[in-house]
């Protein structure tokens, strides 16, 4: 009796996502340079509280096991806590991603008392210097305070979620130490060139050497460290990391955005990946089950240019969003292909402009990231730009 692998089983689609991401608002108190949803300012068309409850009712009917609520910063919505309670009362588990701004000691105690809510704190540097360069001044302190409050409230196993960048790739052990210190579980995830990430991807995405080191570190730590299956493209190095090791977009997961639009994936907020809206007649369930986009994504993928590569069965051609927003064809290699095919492919499209993310809810004025450095004056008194300059070396 041979049972097909899950990858083959999913080609027929699922009647409901297994889990999904729901961005509750585009509003955010921060302006992280790499924000996948280009968040900052609330959109005037965001779903009302009643509309959100209706979505939760649908998720319950479809037996979606859990929803990852994010944004923007979801806790800045006044009805956030009410919606979390509503979801858990209706058998939909909730994990929410937050920068920690509203996780007071009192809130932490409430959260620790709930069995069906999980919390994920975002942090992108093991030191304030590295973190705040990406997430803004004071964000490191905010995150640490939230973690202290959760730990003090007895909340074991909340998540510390990190986006791996060139700047923090050397801090993996330090991140693990922070997670251990607060009784949290570490989660390392992949930077995608999505949202504002498109603007900083070239300078922030890890180098090939860092990717290899990350892979080795993840293999060593096994299931102790989560990845959200975001590094399945690294399976081409050898032993796959824990997870389904396939692109879940439109197949097992999707995104509901703050205005009710349904996208294949939170890293693919673009008209090309827009399946419909929860406000359409038939609601979310009809979009999931019948949209043209999702039906298309559920057809067996042939692999295109990657078909003949020995690693294809492991990496499945990598991340659709990473390819799309770097201007690469979807039936070719991932920009960070571990075999180096992505680098060649990028060179071939270097002159063509890559697609831009749809919509931009960024704050109109944003703090300048602290990594922009000034060359210090040669002496305390001499501010002349020519100080220290000697022509001809």
């Amino acid at each position: 009796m041979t049972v097909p692998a899950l990858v083959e089983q999913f080609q027929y689609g699922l009647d409901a996502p297994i889990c999904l991401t729901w961005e509750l608002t585009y509003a955010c108190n921060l302006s992280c340079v790499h924000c996948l949803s280009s968040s900052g300012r609330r959109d005037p068309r965001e779903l009302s509280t009643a509309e959100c409850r209706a979505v939760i009712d649908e998720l319950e009917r479809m037996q979606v096991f859990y929803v990852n609520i994010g944004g923007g910063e979801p806790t800045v919505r006044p009805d956030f806590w009410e919606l979390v309670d509503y979801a858990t009362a209706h058998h939909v588990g909730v994990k929410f991603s937050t920068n920690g701004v509203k996780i007071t000691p009192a809130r932490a105690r409430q959260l620790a008392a709930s069995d069906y809510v999980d919390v994920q704190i975002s942090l992108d540097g093991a030191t304030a210097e590295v973190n705040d360069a990406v997430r803004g001044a004071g964000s490191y302190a905010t995150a640490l305070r939230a973690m202290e409050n959760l730990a003090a409230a007895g909340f074991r196993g909340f998540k510390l979620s990190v986006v791996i960048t060139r700047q923090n790739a050397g801090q993996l052990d330090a991140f693990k130490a922070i997670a251990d210190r607060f009784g949290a579980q570490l989660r390392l995830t992949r930077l995608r060139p999505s949202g504002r990430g498109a603007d900083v991807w070239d300078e922030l995405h890890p180098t090939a050497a860092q990717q290899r080191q990350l892979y080795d570190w993840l293999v060593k730590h096994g299931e102790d460290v989560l990845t959200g299956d975001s590094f399945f493209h690294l399976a081409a190095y050898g032993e796959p990391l824990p997870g389904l090791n396939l692109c879940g977009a439109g197949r097992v997961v999707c995104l509901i955005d703050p205005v009710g639009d349904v996208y294949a994936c939170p890293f693919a907020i673009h008209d090309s990946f827009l399946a419909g809206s929860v406000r359409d007649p038939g609601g979310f369930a009809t979009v999931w089950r019948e949209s043209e986009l999702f039906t298309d994504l559920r057809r067996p993928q042939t692999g295109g240019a990657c078909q003949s590569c020995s690693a294809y069965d492991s990496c499945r051609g990598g991340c659709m969003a990473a390819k799309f927003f770097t201007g690469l064809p979807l039936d070719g290699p991932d920009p960070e292909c571990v075999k180096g095919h992505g680098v060649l492919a990028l060179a071939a499209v270097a002159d063509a402009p890559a697609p831009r993310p749809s919509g931009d809810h960024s704050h109109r004025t944003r703090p300048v990231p602290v990594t922009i450095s000034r060359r210090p004056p040669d002496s305390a008194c001499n501010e002349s730009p020519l100080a220290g300059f000697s022509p001809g070396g």
Partner: protein
Amino acid sequence: MSERTATADITEAPAEEAELTDAELLVEEVSIDGMCGVY
């Protein structure tokens, strides 16, 4: 008296179990976090 579930005990596996290949496994497990496209 209720028995403990057969979980954490480290015992030898019976020889016949080693003959089943991955293709015949009827159950596959993954962490709910093991799904790409959720952040």
